[in-house]
């Protein structure tokens, strides 16, 4: 199936319609089939990450230049179906059907062809210009699975390319096939389902009014038979009377099978997939015998005791990194950068100087957060994600997460939260139900991120003692559980249990891990850097212009009366909105000393750290919450946490004053 050189010749010699200067190829397929590896192999390092218009699902995009053609390659989210139940499914469906990519490359796992073909059949219903890339041929061979790809190609009526993407095998052939397909779009065969279903698809197609949507008629009919709400609504707009008749056809089918239409259609697709697989696959005995490596690792990773030990080791490693290595790198970096220009709020000087100082302070603040804390976190997360360990941790922690109304998948945002709240909020996208997604984001904002850890360490652990610092940490975790349970009751919407594929373990791929880390870091920089720099300029300017005195006075009822702190801390808390650990810097500047125990009592130190830990998530977090959930939710979370911080701070002040 490499014989596309003939067509290439034609393409290169100008048979291409010259109206297009750029072609679009979409990579689609299930999760864990090696889509990202293939994407990297196709596009090299020239990638960019962007946000979907109007939606906030990440997509990776890269450029493939080959034989004088510019081809934009788009990596769609890894999904199992296009039934539009999740945001990711909707995105993929809309992209394939509305944006009309010139070619859709469906990457499938050779070892689990049946499940993968289910998705392929849906793409075929959409009449996508399809190429099938069968990946991980080597692993399948090891398991004794032999595939007749010629036969598969005949069955589906499309080009089928064998791949071992991780070794780069088959990439050239795939590229050739893409070019050939750009040249003459492939038309997949129509897959015929069972008689009962086919007869009804036919009847609905006959009923369809002219010009329903931009989807193929057969796809529309199938969606109507499934009772897909979007499609039903679209038909209702055009021909309200027809809907009732179509619904009657669907009801007929549902009565025969006693199942919802969508379930019947899915079963039909699986039946068709089984038939195809039975014709192309032969199982050779003497393949991998005994227990697989995955099973062997799982006996440890999913062991009722050892599994949790492993998990504790990983989390412990992360915390050690934050407290020791991260803190050291951050301090060194900060010292180095302060040689270039001072990293302290400038009180007097020309406007230009003040603006520069504000921008510089913001930039340094961002760099000393991202380089020592965030990038290592992302790197480690990408490592455990790519190797397959993350799904095991999710499984082990599912039960605990239930206590907070979440499920196992929420472990990713919660762990990320220890590094930085911003990417942690972004990663809440992996959770399906909107309610659980918002709940996870809310709890993430309460997790002590590295900036807050710095404050707790630098103020309480140093000047009071380590036990009070740990007590604050403990209090935070208790709050997370309590607030999680409360919010779970209060928030409207449904909670869905976890259904998750458990991929086989494999050695992490360096390109994928680095690529994933870089993509996450980039989307973080886009939010953090501007808010740091602009926020820092504004506050520095206000400080220099003497506008902060009124703020102190304004906040004094809270800071002095409720919390029992010196009046100057009002400004410090305002600084903290940009970045929490800037409060230490501001405190030192305002008091003219870094020995806080000389100017603040132990109670004041504890109250100060407690409030800093809980009040307003930093400005970058507010921005990202607003971007993900809307301003109402972002400001709601901000308000709740500020009130909570002041309330608990006031209680702590009054109670602790009694015996300290």
């Amino acid at each position, binding site marked *: 199936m490499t014989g596309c050189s003939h067509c290439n010749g034609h393409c290169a010699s100008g048979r291409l319609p010259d109206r297009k200067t750029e072609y679009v190829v979409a990579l689609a397929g299930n999760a864990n089939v090696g889509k990202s590896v293939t994407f990297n192999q196709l596009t090299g390092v020239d990638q960019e990450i962007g946000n979907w218009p109007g939606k906030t699902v990440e997509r990776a995009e890269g450029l493939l230049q080959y034989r004088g053609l510019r081809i934009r390659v788009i990596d769609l989210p890894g999904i199992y179906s296009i039934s539009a139940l999740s945001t990711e499914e909707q995105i993929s469906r809309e992209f394939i059907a509305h944006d009309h990519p010139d070619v859709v490359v469906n990457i499938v796992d050779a070892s689990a062809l049946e499940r993968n073909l289910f998705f392929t059949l849906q793409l075929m219903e959409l009449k996508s210009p399809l190429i099938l890339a069968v990946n991980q041929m080597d692993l399948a061979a090891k398991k004794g699975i032999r595939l007749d790809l010629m036969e598969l190609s005949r069955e589906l009526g499309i080009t089928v390319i064998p791949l071992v993407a991780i070794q780069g095998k088959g990439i050239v052939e795939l590229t050739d096939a893409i070019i050939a397909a750009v040249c003459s779009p492939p038309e997949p065969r129509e897959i015929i389902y069972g008689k009962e279903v086919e007869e009804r698809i036919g009847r609905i197609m006959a009923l369809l009014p002219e010009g329903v949507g931009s989807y193929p008629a057969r796809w529309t009919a199938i969606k109507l038979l499934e009772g897909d709400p979007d499609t039903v609504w679209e038909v209702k707009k055009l021909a309200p009377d027809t809907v009732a008749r179509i619904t009657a056809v669907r009801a007929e089918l549902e009565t025969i099978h*006693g199942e919802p239409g*969508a*379930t019947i259609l899915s079963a039909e697709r699986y039946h068709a997939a089984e038939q195809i697989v039975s014709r192309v696959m032969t199982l050779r005995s003497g393949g991998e015998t005994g227990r697989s490596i995955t099973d062997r690792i799982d006996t440890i990773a999913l062991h009722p005791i050892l599994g949790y030990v492993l998990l504790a080791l990983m989390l412990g490693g992360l915390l050690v990194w934050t407290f020791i290595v991260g803190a050291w790198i951050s301090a060194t970096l900060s010292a180095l950068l302060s040689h270039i220009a001072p990293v302290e709020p400038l009180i007097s000087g020309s406007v230009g100087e003040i603006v520069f100082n504000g921008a510089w302070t913001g930039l340094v603040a961002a760099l000393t957060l991202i380089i020592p804390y965030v990038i290592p976190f992302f790197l480690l997360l990408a490592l455990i994600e790519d190797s397959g360990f993350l799904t095991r941790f999710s*499984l082990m922690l*599912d039960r605990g997460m239930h206590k907070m109304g979440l499920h196992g998948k929420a472990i990713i945002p919660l762990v990320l939260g220890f590094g930085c709240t911003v990417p942690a909020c972004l990663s809440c996208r992996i959770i399906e139900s909107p309610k659980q997604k918002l709940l996870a984001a809310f709890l993430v904002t309460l997790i002590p991120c590295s900036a807050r850890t710095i404050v707790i360490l630098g103020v309480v652990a140093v000047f009071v003692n380590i036990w009070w610092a740990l007590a604050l940490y403990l209090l935070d975790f208790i709050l997370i559980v309590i607030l999680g349970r409360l919010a779970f009751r209060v928030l409207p919407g449904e909670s869905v249990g976890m259904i*998750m594929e*458990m991929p086989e373990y494999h050695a992490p791929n360096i390109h994928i891990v680095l690529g994933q880390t870089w993509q996450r870091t980039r989307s973080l920089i886009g939010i953090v850097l501007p808010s740091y720099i602009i926020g820092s300029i504004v506050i520095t300017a206000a400080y220099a212009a003497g506008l902060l005195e009124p703020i102190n006075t304004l906040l004094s009822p809270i800071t002095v009366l409720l919390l029992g702190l010196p009046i100057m801390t009002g400004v410090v808390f305002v600084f903290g909105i940009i970045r929490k650990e800037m409060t230490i810097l501001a405190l030192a500047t305002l008091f003219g000393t870094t020995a806080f125990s000389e100017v603040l009592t132990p109670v004041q130190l504890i109250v100060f750290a407690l409030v800093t830990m809980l009040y307003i998530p930093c400005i970058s977090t507010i921005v990202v919450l607003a971007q993900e959930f809307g301003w109402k939710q972002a400001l709601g979370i901000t308000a709740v946490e500020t009130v909570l911080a002041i309330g608990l701070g006031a209680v702590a002040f009054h109670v602790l004053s009694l015996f300290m």
Partner: protein
Amino acid sequence: MASEQLEEYLETILDIEEQDGVAKTSAIARCLKIAPASVTEALQVLSEKGYVKYEPYHGATLTEQGTAMARKVKRRHRLLEVFLTDVLHINEENVHDEACKMEHTLSDETECALCKLLKAPARCPHGSLISACNRKVESCSACLTESESASACTRDEPLLPVTSLAPGQKGIIAFIRGDTSVVQRLTDLGLTLKTEIQLMRKAPLHGPIEIAVRKTRLAIDHEIADHIFVTARAEKGR
């Protein structure tokens, strides 16, 4: 031994077995508030009838026949609890005892009618799972909408929630009960009716279970998995 007494024993043994793996005489005695000596006697009778495997000093485990019987009574008990609570609004404290008395006299026909009336409930008022019946229907909704005259043809093999399989054991999906969108997600991942699945492992503390289906592995929330009903394959291993 009266059938009522026999059923009580089987139910109790099932409960203890699910918790401890084997039902010790002393544990059964404690549960039923009967002297251990009479329990030993009763276990011998049950063993003769083929309902339990009894080893003196070790304890009793249910045979396949015994398990099927015990599950059937449990199902009736829990259905009755729902009925007594939701329809008759009986005082909460009395529900369990009432159900205990009524469960032994319920006929298949009444049980089925009760299930339909209550719209095929998934759980008893105390939150325990109500297992599936053994009628040959493709789904609960099919049963609820079928005409009254439909003949109640029964399955040859009892249905089990997939969570009751032993690790390594295989089963054929008979039906999935529950919310449409959840059923759809499961179906899209390959859990269609009559598909063979294998329980790989159960996470501790009622955590998710891991199953193998169509050469892939899935982790499924315990509550969701409780609604996936299978007919068990006898052989273990892969």
